[in-house]
């Protein structure tokens, strides 16, 4: 574990190397990236296994001295960190591999790999940070990696807008995090997680302050994890290449918000209000995003809203004091959502469109992709036996036990909707007639299918590390007797599991009836163009709302200030210069060229002086 600091450095090396010499390496750049992330993965696995036996490991050194305060940097390997390291490096490695096939032929191939390296570096750095300042630093770097990759197709106006939006919206959240972090610092005199927890536990921080800082930090998580009301950037971020969506906007970065809340869980759990806020925002986002996902027609956007919804789920879990449930779902979600995105990428790669209304009947043509996509869909829908089922069950139990029946019902409805829209997606893409006009549809090369296969396996078996049946290994390990983190496993009533199963199966059935068997017209809910459909299709007009409020207000202030700048500030200056100029004009008018006038003036001056002299006798007293 002493060498855990190497893990983030490999991708950084890949980034630097590719920036400098990537142009000459062309597509061989992929090997650099793959090799480096493989190294990270190997180290991560080693660290993970080491962590099973050994206690946490923490190294720090002085980074910056401010007076008598020493800010440190370093790295820490604890349970959560080790797990995150594994997840991130694994998904990153798989995506690196996958991209070799997906990005084949792009003229900025090496840049893509360089950016991937930068992002992976930042993400790995984020998860091993021992203090909140370092977390913040990598937090922002992750944002930049995401920004660069969203805007990878820089010549597309949509990509440009999406990248900008992603950066600015997450920045709004980041400022919340920054303020919360600084306030926490002045309360506890430290950025170290351990010091902060100690101070919070000792009660040296007032309750309102904890609530305030926790909520401010949560704003950061909202921004990064695409929670309502800062969620709109995430669906737009789908303008980036699909592997990027899989890596950043499904498995890792967006989960950073969840990770942050998890990492600071002792602070959150010290304030009921903060926890409730997290839970409510999470629950609302889960159902809100799911409802939008029902009507979207872009395959990636459906997945994106599903991501938002699932992240809301995790937040709900954390907010209901289900630490283990949240982290568990984070892990399983990383697997199956990455799988779904990679599979979707494979589909897009094959048919060159993202509109699901132009797909259909691809089951036979995509021999590998289709079953893998089905696995992912089943997992996310919570069908028993797959990973999503266990984690979702855990969350529902946590919500029930957390004492929020309303949130519990919200979660159930969200689960139903998830199952419904995911299978709607599945049926529309893979079954029925092909509605598009693709001539040749090829299965993707093995370099793309293999990573999907790995993820597919994990999506199936990933849940078995923490089940009510075979013991809650993950939970025990994560909590490790730390009471601040809550229980290792929440034993909910048995009916919850059945309810969850029934709900998801109902969702699947409904989707099958509408889109698979077509025994119910697709416009049963409300016809296309109906009010409900329109609202959902336009995502509740949130973007438009922001456009007419925040953006317009900002512009308004700007123009108002420009008015001040141009007319008042500049006007004052003009007034002053005008005054001087006026005086000058008067002065120059006096220069009439009349010699006698000059002489008269000079003489009058002399006369006045002489008179004064005569009257005063030479002294002015």
């Amino acid at each position, binding site marked *: 574990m002493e060498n855990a600091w190497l893990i983030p450095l490999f991708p950084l090396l890949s980034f630097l190397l590719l920036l400098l010499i990537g142009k000459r390496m062309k597509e061989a750049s992929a090997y650099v990236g793959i090799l480096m992330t493989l190294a990270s993965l190997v180290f991560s696995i080693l660290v993970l296994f080491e962590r099973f036996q050994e206690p946490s490991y923490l190294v720090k050194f002085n980074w910056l001295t401010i007076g008598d305060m020493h800010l440190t940097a370093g790295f820490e390997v604890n349970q959560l960190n080790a797990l995150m390291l594994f997840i991130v490096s694994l998904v990153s490695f798989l995506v690196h591999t996958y991209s070799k096939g997906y990005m084949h032929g792009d003229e900025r191939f090496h840049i893509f790999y360089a950016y991937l390296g930068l992002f992976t570096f930042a993400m790995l750095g984020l998860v091993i940070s021992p203090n909140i300042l370092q977390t913040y630093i990598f937090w*922002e*770097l992750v944002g930049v990696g995401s920004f660069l990759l969203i805007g990878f197709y820089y010549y597309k*106006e949509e990509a440009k807008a999406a990248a900008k939006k992603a950066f600015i919206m997450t920045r709004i959240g980041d400022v919340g995090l920054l303020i919360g972090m600084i306030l926490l610092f002045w309360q506890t005199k430290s950025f170290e997680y351990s010091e902060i927890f100690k101070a919070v536990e000792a009660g040296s921080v007032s309750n309102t302050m904890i609530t305030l800082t926790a909520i401010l930090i949560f704003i950061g998580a909202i921004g990064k994890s695409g929670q309502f009301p800062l969620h709109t950037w995430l669906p737009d971020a789908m303008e980036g290449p699909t592997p990027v969506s899989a890596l950043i906007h499904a498995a890792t970065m967006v989960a950073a918000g969840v990770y942050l809340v998890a990492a600071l869980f002792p602070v959150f759990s010290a304030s009921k209000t903060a926890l409730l806020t997290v839970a409510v925002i999470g629950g609302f986002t889960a159902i809100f995003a799911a409802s939008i996902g029902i009507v979207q027609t872009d395959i990636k956007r459906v997945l994106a809203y599903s991501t938002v919804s699932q992240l809301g789920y995790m937040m709900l879990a954390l907010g209901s004091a289900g630490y283990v449930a949240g982290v568990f779902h984070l892990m399983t979600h990383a697997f199956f959502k990455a799988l779904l995105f990679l599979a979707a990428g494979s589909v897009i790669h094959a048919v060159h469109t993202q509109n699901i209304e132009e797909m259909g009947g691809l089951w036979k043509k995509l021999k590998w992709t289709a079953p893998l996509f089905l696995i992912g869909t089943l997992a996310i829908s919570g069908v028993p036996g797959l990973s999503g089922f266990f984690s979702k069950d855990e969350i529902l139990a946590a919500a029930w036990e957390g004492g929020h029946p309303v949130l519990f019902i919200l979660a159930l409805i969200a689960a139903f909707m998830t199952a419904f829209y995911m299978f709607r997606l599945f049926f529309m893409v893979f079954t029925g007639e092909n509605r598009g006009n693709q001539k040749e549809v090829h299965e993707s090369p093995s370099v793309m299918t293999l990573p999907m296969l790995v993820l597919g396996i994990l999506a199936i078996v990933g849940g078995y590390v923490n089940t009510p049946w075979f013991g809650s290994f993950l939970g025990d390990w994560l909590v490790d007797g730390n009471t601040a983190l809550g229980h290792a496993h929440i034993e909910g009533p048995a009916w919850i599991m059945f309810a969850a199963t029934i709900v998801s199966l109902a969702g699947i059935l409904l989707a099958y009836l509408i889109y698979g068997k077509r025994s119910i017209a697709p416009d049963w809910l409300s016809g296309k163009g109906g009010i409900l459909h329109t609202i959902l299709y336009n995502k509740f007009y949130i973007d438009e709302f922001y456009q007419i409020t925040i953006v317009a207000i900002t512009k308004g202030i700007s123009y108002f200030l420009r008015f001040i700048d141009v007319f008042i500030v500049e006007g004052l200056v003009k007034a002053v210069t005008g005054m001087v100029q006026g005086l000058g004009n008067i002065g120059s008018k006096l220069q009439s060229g009349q010699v006698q006038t000059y002489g008269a003036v000079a003489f009058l001056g002399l006369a006045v002086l002489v008179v004064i002299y005569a009257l005063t006798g030479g002294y002015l007293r």
Partner: protein
Amino acid sequence: MNLQSILSILVFSPLLGIIVLALLPKTQEKAVKAIGILATLPALILSLAVYAHFLAGKNLSDFSISVPWIKFRGINAQEPFFTVSYELAVSGFQLVLVVLTAIVSTLAAIGAAKFIKKEWKGYYMLFLLLLTGMLGVFTAENLILFFIFFEITLIPTFFLIGKWGYFEKEKAAYSFLLYNGLGSAVLLIVIMILFAKTGTSNIEILRQMMADPSGPLKDGFKLGLFIALLIAFGVKLPIFPLHTWMLRVHVQAPPSVVMIHSGILLKIGAYGLIRFGMGIFPKQFESLATLIAILGVINLLYGAFLAFIQTDFKMVLAYSSISHMGIVLIGLAAMNEAGIQGAIFQVVSHGLISALLFFLVGVIYERTETSFIDKLGGLAKGMPLAAGFLLAAAMASLGLPGMSGFVSEFMAFLGLFKVEPWIAAVGTIGIIMTAAYLLRAVLGMTYGKARREFDGGLDLKGAELVPVFVLMLLIVLIGVYPSVLSSPLQATLETILLGLGG
């Protein structure tokens, strides 16, 4: 070599270049350019040597020099002599600025070989004179000497802007001279009053004299002097509403001059505020701290909001400079280690970043003959390196961690949140706005559809890469390992905080 004479050599070494240039015929362009660049090197090497001396753990006061210079009596023969000494010295803070000046100047000289299209000889002679002035400003240990160097920076800048600038260069040059002339007039009044009342113009002695409550000046009078200083350096910084001159200069001056101007000359304002405002009048600074914090936030937001709607990228950068100087004020107003250190970091960091940004703008302008955002677009295709660095520089400017902008912004806010949380909270809007306006501008230029066809070979090449790489390297170095900058500052900070009664 005698250590004491090093600073004098450092400061006056560019004059040697002027002499050599004066002897060269105008027509030998290459030689003129080469000497113009070479003449900045002695200062660079010497300043780095001084820095190395400091790193070796030796005392910076080895370099202090004090030679009697002017001596005269007042009207009354019984009064003691007024003496003005030729005094140069460096503290850690000054050293950092001297190194910054030397680096940016060398790079700007390299840039000038590219951007300046006529009369290199005159340009480089003025440029080197300016360099001497700047180095002198940062090393002078005496108010009179400081003022002389301060004025030396004004005149060459005026001509550099007025002769080699763009279309409205004369107007820009005059408004530069007008504002800064007024500012330095106020400064001169303050210096003269201090000199007349105390009989000394040595900064260190003045500092001790002012700290003494039984000193020769009353508190109310000191407050007046401090406000005058704030105005004098506020013009330079610039503080809203004294900023309009600087917009014109940023837009009209040639890029290599703006590199110097935005990178170094604006910093003289911050330097003066810290050294004299805070150093000599700590109590007065404290009593106005809230006001300064509010001014800082106004600067920050005002610049940011206005940058958001500009159509000319140079204007965006000009307003962004105003905005960033707000952070300096915010940091200073915090009156604690974190804030002041943040402010100094911001001074250095902004110097590097804006030099880089203006260099890149210069390159882009040279290729495309416009700097309007809506006329550019899609530059990433024609000139990927320039676009990449522009984006990186913008990221540094908006305070991306891992680059110097973040460290300073972070510390400044860290400091202010301790004393004025509400003002600081309002100020954080500026962080968001910074991201918004920079991305809007930079993405507008580099991303999107290319507005025109670019032929090959437009990208950065050859000597142009040197400044870009060096500046980027320094920005990242400070961002990743801030101790490289903070360790020389510790002694200075302690002195200042001592004065603040911390």
